[in-house]
Each structure stands twice: as C-alpha cells, then as structure tokens.
C-alpha cells in the first residue's frame, strides 16, 4: 500500500541521515506515526527528537541540510541551528531550546481554533524530562479547563540528558497526569509506528470533534547520547541491547515484508532512491549561499507584510 510505503520510505531516510540527525534515533517511529495522523490543516510544535515530523510534513531534505549548515536556504536562514526550525506553510512552528516552552503556544493555536470554531487540531510535543517544568502544567491545565483541541505528545525516551525518570518524576506513567487536568492519558509503545499512528489518529480526531485534549505518552529509549558529544555511559548496556531489538525501523520493515509484500527489489529500490535523494540534497544544500551579515538586523522586527503567512490566516 502506497501510504505505508511512503512512511517506510521516510523511516529509512531517518536511519540514513548522517551526523546530528541521529539525535532522534529510536524515536523515528513515534515522530512519523504522530505526524502521519495529523490532518493537512493541523499544526504542531515538534522538538529536537522529531525530525521525522518535519520530513513527514514535507520539508525538503536539502533545506534541512542547509539548516544544519547554517545556510541561507535553511528554514531559519542561518539565524538558528539544527532542529530549531519549521516551515510555517506546512503548519509547523519552530521550537525554542527552552523546554517545554512550546506547549503553551500549541494550546494557544488550539484556542484560536476553538474561538473560530474550526475543526483543526494542535499537537504539542515534550519530553518526559521537561514534564517537570511549570510550562507543561500551565498549558495542560488551561487546555483541560477549556477542553481545547490539542494533543500533548510526551516522548518518554527514559532519559533527560543523563537524568533517569525516577529523578524526574514520581508517578508510574506520565500519562496518568492527564487525569489531574480533566482529560485522557494513553501509554503507547513508541517503537511501534502503527500503534502510534492508531492512538494519535484517535486522539487527534477526538479533539477535532470537540472531545478535548489527550496526553499521549510514547515509550521509547533514546538509543544514543543526549547529543553527539555524549556517549551515554550512564545508560546500562543491557537497556540498549534490549531496546535495539525493538528498533522502530526494523519493526516496520518486518511488518511491511509480512503484511505489505515488501520485496527485496522494492526495498533496494527505496534505499536507492533515498541514497540518491540525500546525495542530491547534500549537493543542493552545499550550493546554498552563506547568509549575508549585512542582513543580520533585518529580521528582528516584523513588518505588516509578514502577516501574510499561512500561519496568520
């Protein structure tokens, strides 16, 4: 089936992108599963493990590479780096470093939809570590009180930098906190892209129909260090081995082979296309010019014309 093949396609990409792209490793299924469940007019605030969301929404790989290189054609034109980016035309809002500062923003998007009585949904991502911050609480409380069309996606990859979950929170499942805000919480195996898709779809459609917020907790393991410099010495090797068996891409490949008659030829075809796509992307990104220092101050203040964005309609 094409839809699924496309998702597989994207998952492959994820596994194949070099360098800092690896920071989402182990989370590709979660990211892609949720993004695939979103409607075209839905919006979201994906974070640093959610490259798969941008790719699924259709950001061209070469522009992502240009972003990493700080080039003029990256979504932030060299103003910000790595996954601190988004394409407004695709309904995505660029994250800030401060976690989970984008959750109140996602709730605000949902508030706009509710005021205008549009059947659109906002999706807000956060990690299990940043669940400890006040922003998570204020956002979920407001969303619960007003029953806004927002889905909170907690990527629980068991570590916040070097901090294990028992030093971050003292409840069994973060999804259980949803009850404290008057909506539903669901725990999902984040390495099973189809399960994620199913639950995300249900939550998003529920919100769309006026059923209020849902808190999805996607359990995964961060399969590498917090970032490239971190070798994750503090994570028990057994844990890595155990979760390696549940690699979302492998799981989905197996599923495709067993249920979607994915053949060796098709797979090689996909890998081939991906390799080419990324080679072309790299070349194209490399041709993107460096930003011009003379324009540094241009972007500080918004002009009335800036308001003609899909965002602001």
């Amino acid at each position: 089936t094409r839809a699924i093949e496309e998702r597989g396609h994207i998952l492959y990409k994820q596994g194949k992108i070099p360098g800092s792209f690896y920071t989402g490793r182990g989370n590709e299924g979660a990211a892609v599963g949720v993004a695939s469940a979103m409607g075209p007019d839905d919006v979201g605030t994906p974070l640093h493990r959610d490259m798969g969301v941008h790719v699924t929404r259709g950001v061209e790989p070469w522009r992502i590479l240009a972003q990493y290189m700080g080039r003029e054609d990256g979504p932030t034109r060299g103003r910000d780096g790595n996954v601190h980016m988004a394409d407004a035309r695709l309904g995505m809002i660029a994250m800030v470093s401060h976690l989970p500062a984008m959750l109140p923003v996602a709730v605000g998007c949902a508030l706009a939809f509710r005021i205008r009585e549009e059947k659109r949904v906002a999706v807000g991502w956060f990690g299990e570590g940043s669940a400890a911050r006040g922003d998570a609480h204020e956002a979920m409380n407001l969303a619960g009180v007003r029953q806004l069309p927002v889905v909170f996606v907690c990527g629980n990859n068991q570590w916040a930098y070097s901090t294990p979950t028992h030093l971050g929170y003292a409840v069994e499942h973060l999804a259980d906190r949803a009850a404290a805000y008057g909506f539903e919480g669901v725990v999902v195996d984040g390495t099973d892209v189809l399960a994620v898709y199913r639950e995300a779809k249900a939550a998003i459609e529920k919100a769309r129909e006026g059923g209020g917020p849902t808190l999805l907790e996607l359990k995964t393991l961060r399969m590498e260090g917090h970032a490239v410099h971190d070798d994750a010495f503090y994570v028990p090797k057994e844990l890595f081995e155990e979760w390696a068996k549940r690699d979302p891409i492998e799981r989905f490949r197996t599923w495709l082979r067993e249920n979607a008659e994915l053949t060796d030829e098709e797979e090689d075809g996909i890998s081939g296309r991906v390799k080419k796509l990324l080679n072309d992307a790299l070349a194209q990104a490399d041709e993107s010019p460096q930003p011009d220092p003379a324009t540094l101050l241009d972007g500080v203040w918004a002009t009335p014309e800036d308001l003609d964005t899909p965002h602001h309609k």
Partner: protein
Amino acid sequence: MAEKTYLQAISDGLRQELRRDERVFVIGEDVGVYGGAFKVTLGFQEEFGPWRIIDSPLAETAIVGACTGAAMMGMRPVAEMQFADFISCAWDHLVTVAAKQRFRAGTPVPIVVRLPSGGGFSGGPFHSQNPESSFAHIPGLKCVCPATPEDAKGLLVAAIEDPNPVLFFEHKHLYRRIKGEVPDERYVTPIGKARTHREGEDISVITWGAMVYTADEAAKQLEEADDVSVEVIDLRTVMPWDKEAVLASVRKCSKVLVLHEDTRTGGFGGEIAATIGEEAFEDLDAPIKRVCAPDCPVPFSPILEKAYIPQVDDVVKGLRELAAY
C-alpha cells in the same frame, strides 16, 4: 470628541477594536464577569461573549503563551496582566519565544500585553513596579507607555495593529486622575514618535508615563520662580524610542534631565543619557542628570514611597542644579 479618563480611553479603544476586528480577543484573570481588576473590560463579556473575553486560570505563562499561539493562527490577542508586576511570571515566554520567533523563524507574533503599572498609592513592592526597562533591553519586544487619554487610545490601537509583541504599560495612577479630550472615531498614534508635552528653551526633560505630569509641575515652578524655560518631551514609547526628537530638543536646550519612575541603575534612562552623550556630545553645556527612583523595591509606607518615587521637588532641585551649571 469627548472628555474621558485615561482608563475610559483605554476601555473604549479596546471595545472599538473588538467590534471592528473579530480576530481581536481578550484573555486574562477576572477580565470577564468582573471586568478586570480595574474594570477596563467591564461589560465586555456581555457584548462579546465568553470566547472573546476569556477568564483565564491564574497562570501568566499560559495566558501570554496562548496569545502567542493564537496570534500565529491569525488572531490578535490582547492579554491583561492583573498588575504589571505579575508579568515576571511570563518573562521566559516573552523573551525566549515571543521576542525571538520573528528573527529565528520568520514568524511574527502580533500580541499585546496590557500592564497596569506604577506606584503612588501604597501598593507595596508587588503592585507598584514599572518593569519597562527590563523588556526594552530585549530585541523584538516593543514597550508603549502612554501619558494622556488620547495617546492611550491611539497607542492601544497601534499596538493591536503592530505585527510584533507589544507591552502596553498603563499607569494606574493616571487611570482616574487624568482626563482629556479623546476622539470618538478610530485613530492610530504611531509607535516610536515622541510628543512635546511642553515647549521650552533652556533645559530639556526626557520622560514618559506618569512622570510627564511631575516634570510639567516642576517646569511650571522653574518658569515662575526662576524664569528658566523647561521643555518636557513625552517619549510615549520606550521601545522603540524617538531618538531624533530627543536629540533635536537636546540641541535646542543643551541641558538635559532624564526622568523615570523605575529604579536608576540599569534603568532605561541610562540608555537615553548614554545615547545623547554619544551623539550630542558637543551640544551639551552640562552633564546629563538622571532623576529616578533609588535602587530598592517599592516600599509600602506612604512616607517611604514618597521618598522613593521621584517628586516634583526632586525634579525642581535637579533642574535648578542644571540651570546653575
């Protein structure tokens, strides 16, 4: 055209915008049934309903953060802080998200945050502050501080129209004390243009907000008692601030006093004095004097607060020193 209080002008201006632009909505603590702590939105919820005049939970980051999200989706949110002092609870959102989103991602954040600010009535350390200096230092945030009813309405309209995050400082001490003629129709007072509150020749006072009236009083006294003519420039907006108007006045008077209600050290008066010193060095016949609150929290006791907030006598003293220089 009718005579209105500063508070009425804000209230009417906001209602007018709510009527003409359905993208505009109000959110804050007790802004609905109660009409806001200062009754600026009194009766609004009856007219516009609970989804355009939104009583929020007690959560400033949720309020302002939600405004940012709604603004990105095409709304024109106007948040009310119950007192300006509580904006400290939304500091991170404003400086981290709202101020930088346009620069980083090209996404404008057209929100307005209304901030009842200022002292003079024994509000104590947490109901009297003037935090504009803290925000004026953050690139991407605008700070508006009207002194007259006419400006209060016109600048509020401008703030709502502006595609950037605007902090709208309403001085509580002016709410009911200051009356003035306010046009009934809609009009825009441009952000970034100062006004000359009083023409003068000898000394230029640069100020904004409630201090405009303190300066004017002092100017009167100097004119009468000392025959010194004092010009009073009302900045109207602190970020952006009207450097050209200030420098013109400085070149004319060649003596300057910068006056604000916030504390002195690190206050925005330092920026203004430094800029004048840098760009009008040759025009100055005396050191630029700053009259500000001393470096401490706003005290509760009326006697202490009087010693804290710059009084007419303090300005007179400063002006006399400049005149004698």
